């Protein structure tokens, strides 16, 4: 490992501080005993306890969790299918257009995605609630899954699928028995990414949510407008923890798969 120069240490510290100082402050104040957010009065986990008795927050948390699980699962199925078609089908008419359209939502401003979804839901007369939030989240997280899965599929040896067909598999059985187990780490990473995206989304959810269902980020946002409470700090800390675990797991899965693939290739070279 190379030693870091003073310049590098300084820029690294500044950069990290810029990114994480706000969150660190939030996490610290979530353990504040005082009711006044900006006055430190000793360590306490009191607000975490109170959070457990706040029905409104717990309801919103439950909705958020349901939305995240269902939408990320749907997004994973759709995103994997799209990635598979894009990588496998070769050059078909309109392929470039199709792949462009898959990835466009990545750069589309969320406000626009949210607004267009809202218009669609009103247009087809769909009552806004948990179902519309799920649909909206599936829409925007699907392209992230598709990016993650297709990057794995590109390096996938097509002969493996042909071998499966050759040995008597139908195309679907070949996908289920050979392709899917091999790309599973990327699919799981995609699911985790979609899950965390759904968990902390505010903009799109606020367009798609109705009076019958509110997600946690919306709840926090509206509560903060009435003044920041230590309870919200505690809730936010929990969310930070969940998202961090999700992202770290996703990246570890991707990395471990890459390392293992590398090791296999090295073993093949040696042989």
């Amino acid at each position, binding site marked *: 490992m190379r030693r870091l120069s003073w310049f590098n240490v300084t820029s690294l510290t500044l950069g990290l501080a810029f990114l994480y100082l706000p969150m660190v402050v939030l996490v610290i104040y979530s353990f504040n005993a005082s009711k006044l957010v900006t006055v430190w009065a000793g360590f306490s986990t009191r607000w975490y306890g109170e959070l457990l008795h706040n029905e409104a927050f717990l309801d919103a948390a439950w909705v958020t969790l349901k939305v995240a699980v269902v939408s990320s699962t749907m997004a994973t199925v759709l995103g994997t299918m799209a990635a598979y078609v894009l990588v496998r089908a070769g050059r078909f008419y309109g392929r470039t257009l199709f792949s462009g359209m898959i990835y466009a939502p990545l750069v589309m401003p969320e406000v626009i995605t949210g607004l267009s979804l809202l218009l669609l839901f009103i247009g087809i007369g769909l009552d806004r609630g948990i179902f519309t939030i799920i649909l909206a989240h599936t829409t925007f997280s699907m392209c992230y899954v598709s990016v993650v899965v297709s990057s794995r599929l590109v390096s996938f040896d097509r002969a493996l699928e042909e*071998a499966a067909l050759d040995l008597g598999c139908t195309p679907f059985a070949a996908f289920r028995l050979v392709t899917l187990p091999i790309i599973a780490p990327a699919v799981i990473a995609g699911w985790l990414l979609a899950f965390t995206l759904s968990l902390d989304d505010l903009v799109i959810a606020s367009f798609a949510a109705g009076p019958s269902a509110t997600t946690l980020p919306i709840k926090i946002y509206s509560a903060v407008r009435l003044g920041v409470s230590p309870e919200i700090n505690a809730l936010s800390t929990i969310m930070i923890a969940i998202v961090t675990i999700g992202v770290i797991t996703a990246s570890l899965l991707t990395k471990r798969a890459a390392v293992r693939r590398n090791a296999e290739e090295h073993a093949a070279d040696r042989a």
Partner: protein
Amino acid sequence: MPQTVFAPWNDPDEKPLISFQGVTKRFGDFTAIDDITLGIYAREFFALLGPSGCGKTTLMRMLGGFETPSAGTILLAGQDIAPVPPNKRAVNMMFQSYALFPHLSVWDNIAFGLRREGRDKAAIAARVEEMLKLTRLEKFSHRKPHQISGGQRQRVALARSLAKAPKLLLLDEPLGALDRKLREETQFELMDIQEKTGTTFVIVTHDQEEAMTVASRVAVMDEGRLIQVATPDRIYETPDSVYVADFIGDVNIIEASARQSGDKVSLAWAEGQLPLIATTTKTFAPDQHCWLAIRPEKIAISAERPKAANALQGRILDIAYLGNISTYHVALPSGQVLKAQTANTRRIERRSFTWEDEVWISWTDTAGVLLDK
């Protein structure tokens, strides 16, 4: 005891197992296979040989069901296989990259095809054990593909493709990834297994030595066409074109114009030189342009003028010492360089010739092959 020679292609009553009839394959404007008609017989070890891009892999993939012909029909045991998908064909393929399933053990890899057939557990286990024994992999059955060596992986791929007892086994450059020594051993293993199982093998290779070693017949391909289909010794001894002569082994090609009398042909090949003499069964028009192909090992080298039908004087330009044999590059007064090969039966210090020596090279009238294309 009279030995019956395996040569079903000479028997007019024998029906080929596979029959290509006017098969053409186009990819866009590119013609990969150009109107091929070919029969491959049961129990043959048939080699498709050619440089990369000659269409040999495409021809094989059509048998496997991964490509469909643009025109013509392919019959397998009398049945048109064009509409049959790969998973319904009694054909298995061994892939160039082996394509072993990395998430399955050696045992499960071999059992994969058997399980798709829905056989009962005991039958599958028995068949897998049989395959492991055939390929000497018993000790590795629980390892994953990345935990075994390249040679072992090659054998797993072979065992997996043989497990379903296909009528026809396709091998796509099966030994390409192995080093030379292992490759030679494996070639004999392949022949052994082919004999034991009685399966028809079709092998694709660009390595002419490999094709010559393993195959009962070799098809030399170029630019989507079959150039010559014959047994290895016929391909080597009597190539029917300059392309085949040049592609298989080492050869001297002398351009000349022919003057035939009976089966003897007198060849005018360079100004101010005596004509060369060759025999042929073909007919050449007077002064027809032709090529004489002679293998280096059929050219003798000597200090004195020998009593042979063809003798030329020259100077040794280069010597390639290969251990068991040496190849002498002899420059003729005409400027042409011919290669002559001798076995090194004596120690190298006692070698009779060295660089710049004036020598005679000679060959008989039957040593070369006279070609008209």
